[in-house]
């Protein structure tokens, strides 16, 4: 059966190198979607022994090794490719998966995104600007709006209140198709929050 997951030459070499170090003559690699969240999709890639294969697993022959995938992960990995990247700080496998493209990786376009953007510009940003804050639309996917907060909103102790009691309400009122709002802000990196928490 043709593998729905492609390994680049570098990734294949890395697998075979690790297998060789472990003395594996017929190596198998399990790929698992550890977290399917588009906010932070995570994968686990591990060399496994034969007795670690499970009955329900799908096994695909690859040049030099088997790829083992559980059925749930297989649904999410069709068309994915695995590469090996070398960096100064760390090296490792990198998965490109069109099914779980991280939020913000797709272009911001379409009528829904336009309407959301308009609400943010017309209502939200003038309001949060009073607290030195700003809100940026990152993506609209599956009718969920992904937002990033900046300035006084980033790291603010009341950011969750602004989101749920202000932004979410006005967005759902103005764009009723919206089913959810997700905050993708790294609040711990905020250096000038409007409210900081105290005992």
């Amino acid at each position: 059966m043709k593998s729905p997951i492609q390994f680049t030459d570098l990734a294949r070499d890395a697998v075979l190198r690790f297998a060789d170090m472990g003395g594996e003559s017929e190596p198998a690699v399990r790929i698992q979607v550890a977290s399917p969240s588009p906010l932070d999709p995570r994968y686990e890639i591990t060399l496994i022994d034969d007795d670690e294969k499970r009955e329900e697993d799908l096994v695909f022959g690859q040049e030099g090794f088997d790829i083992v995938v559980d059925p749930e992960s297989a649904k999410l990995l069709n068309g994915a490719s695995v590469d090996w990247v070398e960096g100064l700080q760390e090296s490792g496998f990198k998965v490109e998966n069109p099914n779980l493209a991280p939020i913000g990786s797709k272009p911001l376009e379409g009528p829904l995104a336009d309407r959301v953007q308009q609400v943010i510009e017309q209502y939200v940003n003038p309001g949060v600007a009073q607290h030195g804050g700003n809100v940026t639309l990152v993506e609209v996917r599956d009718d969920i709006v992904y937002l990033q907060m900046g300035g006084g909103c980033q790291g603010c102790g009341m950011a969750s209140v602004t989101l749920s009691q202000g932004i979410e309400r006005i967005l759902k009122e103005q764009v009723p198709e919206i089913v959810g709002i997700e905050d993708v802000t790294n609040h711990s990196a905020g250096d000038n929050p409007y409210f900081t928490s105290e005992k």
Partner: protein
Amino acid sequence: MPRVLLLFARTSYRAEAFLEAARRLGVDVTVGSNHRQALADLAPGATLTLGIKDVARSSATIVRFAADYPLAAIVAAEDDFTPLAATASEALGLTHHPSQAVRCARNKALMRERLSAAGFSSPWFRTAQLEDDPVAVASRIEFPCVLKPLALSASRGVIRADTLEQFVPAWNRIRAILEEKDVVGRIGRLATEILIEAYLPGRELAVEGIVSAGELLTLAVLDKPDPMEGPFFEETILLTPSSFPEPFQEDITSLVSECAAHLGLSDGPIHAELRVHDDRISLLEIAPRSIGGRCSAILRFEPDASLEELILRHALGMPLHGFLREPGAAGVMMLPIPAAGILREVGGLEAALEVPDIDGLEITIPLGHTVIPLPEGNRYLGFLFARAKTPDQVETALRAAHSRIEVRIEEA
């Protein structure tokens, strides 16, 4: 859909956890806070601006609000708003600790007086006015003693003094805290007195619970493994389950239950602090609120509920029975602030997160901000969380992870 009014001080650590709990329970929310929210005009009924000090006035505002937006419950996330939550709940006939009981528990001297008069084991204590002469006050007490504000939390302004030479500087430091504009704004006339009481040696622990129709549901007994001997009483690690033997834990929770009942705390969360010395249990404080900071994150209940969800369930009259703390041990370290100055760098966070059993890490003071250690400090540097099979493993993980965190503070 029932509506709950959640009261957060503008400096709350708890907003996100309570909002998430409300979302999971499917209740509508109004947030009341002592600062106008940025988008207040966009969503009528979603937020309410309320003063902390003038409880009667803010309670009247809530009652007027409830005429347009009927409320099923009012819950205060932390100390500051508990008197208002109690008063407004009384006015609207909602489930809550009575306002009289909340006022009593909020005032550490009054609480001590009530419990002592009822025969509960209690250290000697007395109060003094801020303008009193500390030397004269010290001449009328015994050492070692502990000086503390009547209404601040998390050990802020709590100082041990073993001699007159230690007493006077301790007094002056507390007076400076109580004269801060922000503190006066929060605790009002309670900022005019200092409580002085006997220092009690022994191990310290905390009890978290919800009182429902006068019955205490104990949610956790938490050990504090670091010695709390002063001169300051910085809380660092909290671990649950407690290592005290089960029958002794029952004695502890019985005492908490009796004290809560005596103070009249009948419906709502409580957080009690106790000391154990030679098998003698003494209640230090009992607050009409849940655990502070982000510490509640270690308390998870099966089937799948947070502490905040249980608090809201109780306030809304939903059943609480059947919820049990998740098996295993959990703990939190409130990261201590090692020195005063400007926070320039917090390193080693990834290394800390890699320690086995570490479950999470949050730094809650932004870089570039002023940090102040206890007893004056009023912010936590951050929180480190761990889960494992045993409390010992949790404690080991917390200490190992903490040792990997490097904090650089520049002298201001």
